[in-house]
């Protein structure tokens, strides 16, 4: 039969693989090639904190600050809540309750970024404005909370997998020694699941750094580093929101466009490194201790 020969099969597989390889190479070449030459020849243009295309200044300082602040706030919210929720799902429930609870929590993962943005603009921003008596609800803090909620399901499901990968015998033996549930968790389950939990935090960190639409709608769009670094009730800008906001207005080939490519390169290097390290340590865990 025609499609089933060795040769045509090899051809089909080879063709698909070539398409994927070409796409990935093009992605790397375009992002690196579009930014590296100007970054190397004129680094002073980018390593400052004033972003003003009209004055030919494209400092990334304020954007890096915004990205870091938003991500730190997001993780401070998502990591503790996510890990404790995962403990609840994995260790305190079983059977039907567990399946239902897990499915309900996974619903959160499907909500598109833009809908979080809409909720952020209409509700969260307004609440924060009134709660802290601010002139505007579009702040770094708002964006941080929103991203925290967005990455929460990721932490929950990855941590749950990590906890589930610790075999039941260990829990039973610990229980047989007279340990309480919290002691089993802290002294037996957690040490064994530690590496996977850390790598899941890294994977989620990569997601948080790259979040665009929701952040763009609520972060405020002000390219400054506040005098007091801890003042997060202040409008800011992140790498992603900057690209999202200005890509449409920068003409291809202009210094402005090149500067946006530099932002893209920075963002890609950071997220890809974090994701790669996180994925690398995310070894298949099941059966490892048996």
């Amino acid at each position, binding site marked *: 039969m025609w*499609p089933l020969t060795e040769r045509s099969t*090899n051809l089909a597989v080879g063709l698909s693989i070539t398409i994927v390889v070409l796409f990935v190479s093009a992605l790397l070449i375009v992002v690196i090639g579009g930014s590296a030459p100007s970054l190397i020849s004129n680094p002073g243009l980018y390593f400052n904190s004033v972003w003003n295309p009209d004055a030919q200044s494209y400092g990334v300082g304020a954007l890096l600050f915004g990205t870091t602040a938003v991500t730190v706030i997001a993780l401070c919210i998502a990591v503790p809540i996510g890990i404790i929720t995962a403990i609840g799902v994995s260790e305190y429930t079983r059977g039907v309750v567990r399946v239902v609870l897990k499915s309900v929590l996974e619903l959160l993962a499907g909500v*598109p970024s833009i809908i979080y943005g809409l909720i952020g603009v209409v509700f969260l921003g307004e609440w924060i404005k009134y709660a802290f008596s601010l002139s505007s609800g579009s702040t770094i803090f708002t964006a941080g909370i929103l991203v925290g909620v967005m990455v929460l399901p990721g932490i929950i499901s990855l941590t749950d997998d990590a906890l589930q990968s610790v075999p039941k015998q260990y829990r039973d033996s610990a229980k047989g020694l007279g340990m309480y549930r919290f002691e089993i968790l802290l002294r037996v389950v957690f040490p064994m699941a530690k590496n996977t939990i850390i790598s899941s935090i890294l994977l989620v960190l990569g997601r948080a750094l*790259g979040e*665009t639409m929701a952040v763009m709608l609520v972060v405020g769009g002000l390219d400054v580093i506040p005098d007091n670094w801890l003042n997060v009730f202040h409008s800011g800008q992140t790498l992603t929101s900057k690209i999202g906001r200005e890509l449409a207005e920068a003409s291809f080939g202009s210094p402005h466009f090149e500067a946006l490519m530099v932002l893209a390169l920075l963002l890609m290097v950071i997220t890809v490194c974090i994701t790669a390290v996180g994925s690398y340590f995310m070894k298949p865990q099941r059966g490892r201790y048996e």
Partner: protein
Amino acid sequence: MSRRVINALSGGVVFLTVSLSALLVFGIVGVIVFNGVGSVNFSFISEASQQFGAAGGIVYQLVGSLLLVAGTGLLTVPLALSVAIFWSEYARSIPVKRVIQMTLYVLNGVPSIIFGIFALVFFVNLLGVGISWGVGVIVLSMMILPTVSLAGYQTITAIPIQYRESAQALGFSRALLIWHVLIPQGIQGVITGLIIGLVRAVGETASILFVATAFSGAGIPLSLREPVATLPTHILALAQQATNPVALQNAWGSALVLMTIVLVLSGIAFIFRLQFSKRSVV
């Protein structure tokens, strides 16, 4: 404090936190339904939008989103199957497998806005394709490729060894093994992964904002090279004029329609996963 008290307290903290997370889910879904349900009716999903979305319905946005999802699905299945088969059957050495795995992880870690800026430079400016939904399909399918290939790879490597041994005993070539054993057995994993990927694709905004979508004036595309309107870009445009109550009402309506698509897809993926786990026990 005695250990017993700590145990009870920690149980309480866990219970409260799980309740908080569950409340968050119901709160978010509730907000979307509560705000959106008032504006969704038959004319909303069957009429074209007017005045940049501030009036009228969302039929072209709905059609655009569904077209993108359908196109992405059609393109992703053969690509992901090939990657999975190449990974499990053709790649013999550990370093090659490592490279494939690492490439997929990297692709998975690239933020969607980077796909957007890349596609704008490569397809729209360098290749001169213009803003077209065909580019959107390519970008979205590359974004979900890691998820789908990984699901396919895991299913294919989980096929019991007896199947391969039987195929070998019958004198199957590698091609026959692929077409008659691996693809029929592995397709379910690919489809499950695909639906999960499509949930992500249908809500995707940043990656296709500059290359495949138009805010207004886009109708049903007559060729792959025309832009489409999509639900997420529509919501974005409306959210930016949040002071206009009618526009906001339409934004919530669009959000509810988008969320419904997401829920239906997630439900299908859930059923597939249940059936699959049943079958692998047998």
